[in-house]
């Protein structure tokens, strides 16, 4: 049985439909990513799964319990790190951790091995008030507090937002280690490059999932050809010029290159047309799509 399942959940805030028929299944021990921009509905979904709000319709089960009927059971079994820093700012690092342990009837000592890796990094500041920590340290403390009771399922809502690339990499390494210990982890992020580190991802936009699969399968099913080119000169002009080529569906910057999407053109045909439009095609090549390319290629017919 799935460790977490959500069936046809809908939620509205007044006139705004935050979740429009969302379903998901998360296997025990897997790392599941919900990828989408601000306003997609990620946080609303997390609050439903962690029993903090009740959906208008549909249902959700966590560890075999219903999020509405069995609210208290679920709360003992899950750890939740909200997107917004929610620890006690005027308690110290170690006071916050002990508080969370005692709320769950356990002690820091009992489960220290689970958080040790992360806690060691903030231990030099254990006497500092949480409100005085830097962003990266707050994030590490929040993660320790969310799992000091050894939860079966860990819910992390945008743990890496606003975090620099080095700390983001370290954070994902920590998640892999937790997964190796058998914990089920559901994590949301607006960073598309983090999708590849999950077992399964759902791409989410405007209150709906439009793709759920392994990151590899998502990119394999891109279904169109993707090309890259290094364009010199004005990027704005190159974007417009290449997008105007017959048969090109989209052209957008991607790191130091431009990506060109087409369902009809071969590399030879695109080369010829780009060359006659005056572009230096020496760097033009077909390339492999990323999750970000798939996200951008989405249109309304793609909803699950």
């Amino acid at each position, binding site marked *: 049985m799935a460790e977490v399942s959500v069936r046809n959940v809908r939620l509205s805030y007044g006139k705004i439909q935050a979740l429009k028929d969302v379903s998901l299944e998360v296997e025990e021990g897997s790392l599941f990513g919900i990828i989408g921009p601000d306003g997609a509905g990620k946080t609303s979904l997390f609050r439903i799964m962690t029993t903090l709000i009740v959906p208008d319709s549909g249902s959700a089960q966590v560890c075999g319990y219903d999020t509405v009927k069995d609210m208290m059971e679920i709360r003992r079994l899950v750890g939740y790190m909200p997107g917004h820093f929610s620890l006690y700012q005027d308690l110290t690092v170690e006071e916050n951790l002990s508080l969370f342990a005692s709320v769950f009837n356990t002690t820091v000592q009992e489960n220290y091995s689970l958080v040790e890796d992360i806690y060691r990094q903030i231990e030099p500041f254990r006497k500092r008030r949480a409100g005085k920590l830097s962003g990266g340290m707050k994030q590490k403390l929040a993660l320790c507090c969310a799992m000091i009771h050894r939860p079966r399922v860990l819910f992390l809502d945008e743990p890496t937002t606003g975090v620099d690339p080095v700390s983001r990499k370290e954070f994902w390494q920590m998640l892999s280690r937790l997964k190796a210990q058998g914990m089920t982890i559901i994590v949301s992020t*607006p960073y598309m490059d983090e999708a590849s580190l999950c077992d399964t991802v759902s791409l989410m936009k405007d209150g709906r999932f439009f793709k759920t699969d392994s990151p590899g399968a998502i990119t394999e099913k891109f279904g169109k050809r993707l090309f890259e080119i290094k364009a010199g000169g004005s990027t*704005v002009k190159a974007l417009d010029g290449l997008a105007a080529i017959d048969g090109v569906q989209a052209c957008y910057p991607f790191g130091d290159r431009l990506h060109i999407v087409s369902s009809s053109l071969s590399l030879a045909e695109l080369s010829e047309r780009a060359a006659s439009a005056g572009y230096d095609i020496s760097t033009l090549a077909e390339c492999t799509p990323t999750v970000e390319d798939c996200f951008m290629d989405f249109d309304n017919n793609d909803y699950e």
Partner: protein
Amino acid sequence: MAIHAESLTKQFGNFTAVDNISFSVEKGEIFGFLGANGAGKTTAMRMLCGLSRPTSGKAVVAGIDVVKDPEKIKRRIGYMSQRFSLYDDLTVSENMTLFAGIYGMREKDIAAKRTAVLTRLGLYDERDILVGSLPLGWKQKLAFSVSIFHEPAVVFLDEPTGGVDPVTRRQFWRQIYEASERGITVFVTTHYMDEAEYCHRVSIMVDGRIAAMGTPSELKASLGAGTMDDVFYMLARNAERIG
């Protein structure tokens, strides 16, 4: 020269947040100001905006000395951050008028400029709608237009695209390019390393100092790195300050 900093330093007690940094940014340049959390980016940016007085060193922004004339600087720059940009409970038009007024524009200049900007953005018919009810992508574009509404010499963008979807992020960068091609200098921080590639030049701060500065291709070549993500990782992974 749009920005010139020389040995700029800021100490808080015995902690040196910004440690003797020097750099220049040309007019119309898109300058990416990168660094790990806690490296000192925000403190440096606050000094350049005239919001924090340097402990030592000097900086000239849009021709104005940040130490001697911090008030004057605020009229020559624009500022936008992810967290604070516009008032949700004012209309599109009201937000423009409010910020233009704060930046010291005269009322008769504001009306004409407002129509032009609304038309260019394709938001003219939405001018009386509350900003809070606009889709996030639109808000972002509007916020940038508001930050350069008064045609500042330099615009400071503090993580302007955090959490924004990939399509909107790229539309936003298109606006940045257009502003730069009009001669506005863009000083931008970001945690998206693909966006670092879109900058003309970038600097990477580590522990209060500038650890590297150059065009993205120069930095990649000098470190033998494939992407700016690798460059950042190589420079910042040994940072002593914990972010």
